[in-house]
């Protein structure tokens, strides 16, 4: 799960990484109080999990209290990238001498944590990465030995830093790696890491992403609906299902991410448009029933396409769950199914028994669903 900038900065502060003075405002009163406390000018930054906030005009330099209040009152409630803005961070502006980039993330190919740094940093780090790749320093880390002083020294020196700057960036690196490990993070990123004119180093932004699989032990963090682009996605996730809303009209229920994506590809190749991505494990009755219920909540859905090829779950068990759910929910739309795997004969019988056509072949089922969606 992603954390908001203000949450990330709170964690940075705890870890000894300097952050700008800032106050989170949730309404007009909060904005006025913040400005009263910090003085002017302030920078208003909408708290959103999606990127491109700057380009969307959600970061603004405010010279007056009214301007700050305006940002807070106008932004809160607005939608950005599928989420609703609920808070604005008001911060003292930084006196920027230089911007750098620093992150710790995972290199999936190496299977190792990696420290990524750049002495130039700022908004266009991806551009630097593609146009001036030698400016980006990557330091892979052995997870048992941790990020060692010599690695920090090498990185800082490759960033072109020396003296006091090198020392303070080194400290931030060590703290950032410590955070990465202790938070079970997939990413901790400071972009930009700002060197102020008076020589102080400050984290200008904070991007922290916690590994969802570690939430059972990272008890500080709770995944809420704001982590999802859509209420249905959240509801699905809460039920252990993976759901993404798309803009078509064929509701899709599949087992396995690969088969789901393939089904979506086949719909597309046949000229249809899927209404969702939905992967359900299918191990239990409840799951397939819940998956069905969520898929049907999307009013765009004209046809329902069920494609499974049982692995852990037996086809007949999945079929029983689906049949039960269909009998209960009584959806008033055509359903097409290709349910294969262990005991697929009985599965087929069960599904046919409630009047739903079944196919042996995924591609045939998809073609039929696309036809029905066009009717």
């Amino acid at each position, binding site marked *: 799960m992603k954390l908001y900038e203000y949450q990330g900065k709170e964690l940075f502060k705890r870890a000894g990484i300097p952050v700008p003075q800032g106050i989170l405002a949730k309404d007009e009163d909060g904005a006025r109080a913040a400005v009263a406390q910090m003085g002017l000018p302030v920078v208003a930054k909408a708290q959103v999990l999606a990127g491109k906030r700057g380009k969307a005009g959600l970061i603004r330099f405010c010279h007056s209290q009214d301007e700050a209040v305006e940002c807070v009152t106008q932004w809160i409630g607005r939608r950005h990238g599928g989420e609703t803005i609920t808070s604005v961070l008001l911060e003292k502006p930084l006196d920027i001498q230089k911007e750098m*980039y620093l*992150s*710790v*993330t*995972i*290199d*999936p*190919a190496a*299977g*190792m*944590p*990696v420290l*990524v740094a750049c002495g130039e940093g700022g908004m266009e*780090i*991806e551009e630097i*990465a*593609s146009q001036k790749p030698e400016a*980006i320093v*990557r330091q892979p880390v*052995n*997870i*048992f030995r941790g990020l060692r002083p010599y690695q920090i020294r090498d990185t800082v020196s490759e960033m072109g830093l020396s003296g006091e700057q090198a020392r303070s960036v080194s400290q931030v690196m060590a703290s950032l790696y410590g955070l990465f*490990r202790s938070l*079970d993070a*997939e*990413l901790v*990123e400071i*972009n930009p890491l700002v060197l102020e004119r008076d020589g102080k180093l400050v984290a200008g932004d904070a*991007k922290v*992403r916690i*590994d969802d*699989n*570690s939430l*059972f*032990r990272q008890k500080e963090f709770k995944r809420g609906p704001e982590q999802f682009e859509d209420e249905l996605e959240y509801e699905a996730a809460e039920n252990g299902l993976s759901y*993404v809303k*798309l803009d078509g009209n064929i509701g899709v229920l599949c*087992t*396995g*991410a*690969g*088969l789901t*994506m*393939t089904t*979506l*590809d086949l719909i*597309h*190749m046949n000229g249809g448009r899927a209404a969702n*991505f939905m992967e359900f494990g299918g191990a239990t009755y409840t799951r397939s029933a819940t998956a069905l219920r969520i898929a049907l909540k999307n009013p765009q859905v004209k046809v329902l396409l069920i494609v*499974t*090829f*049982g*692995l*852990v779950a037996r086809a007949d068990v999945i079929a029983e769950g689906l049949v039960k759910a269909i009998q209960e929910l009584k959806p008033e739309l055509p359903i097409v199914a290709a349910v*294969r*795997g*262990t005991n697929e004969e009985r599965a087929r019988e069960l599904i046919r028994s409630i009047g739903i056509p079944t196919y042996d*072949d*995924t*591609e045939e089922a998809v073609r039929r669903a696309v036809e029905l969606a066009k009717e």
Partner: protein
Amino acid sequence: MGIFVFKDTRVLVQGITGSEGTFWTEWMLKAGTRIEAGVTPGKAGERVHGVPVYGSVKKAVKEKGCEASVLFVPPAFCKDAVFEALDAGIRKLVLLADGVPIQDMLEMKAFASEVGAMIVGPNTSGVATLGEAMLGFVPFWLGHVYRPGSVGIMTRSGSLTNEIASHIVKAGLGQTTVVGLGGDPVPGTRFVDVMRLFQADPKTEAVVLVGEPGGTMEEEAAELIAKGEFTKPMVAFLAGRTAPPEKKMGHAGAIISGGKGTIQGKTEALESVGVKVAMKPSEVGSMVKALLG
């Protein structure tokens, strides 16, 4: 033959007394797997489908000489179980759990690479060498999907693999070994690792790669072919051509992946080294057949 697990491989089942472990032990035995022992702490002395249960991997290895382990262990305990197995000398592991913390996986990979072990998974359906042995839950009993043959399969998907495998059988062929790498971002074993094994297996005449968007495993596979280290005919099927672009891990993700990861890029990389890329699952069987002449 085939790769990774054979009929004479002495196998350990970690977490054998759990409901999943018990259920699948029966199926693995039916597949011919030589399961010598199971481990569940505190349950030493029990038996599961005739397999003796030990309290620790060390004891199971000492008494039964187990070489490979398949783990039916909840995600939170996988790291400990894998460490225990590696420490006891096990060098082939199949990690089935879905939901393993990614940093735990980094530690497991680091330990495995120190000692030269191979971890398949996590979040996988496992490995099956048809007619010899199965570790996990590959439905080898579906005769129209899996049967012994000459095609190796390596895959990032579960259900989709059954779909693809069924088309291989439909084409009159069969499989040597099916290896599920699992759906997690940091799999213990990558396409290239499996390709090196398939390359060395005389029975595997062609390999099918089942890929997905994200990561760089397909690109690495292409590089291995470009370097001449893998020379057998290969057909690839890549799911997710129309999937919305992956949610990235900030800028760092983009920097690390170097812009790799799209299906388009993967297709180009694979085709540039002579891999045939199928557009539909149903094409895979006939494409392999054509390559094998």
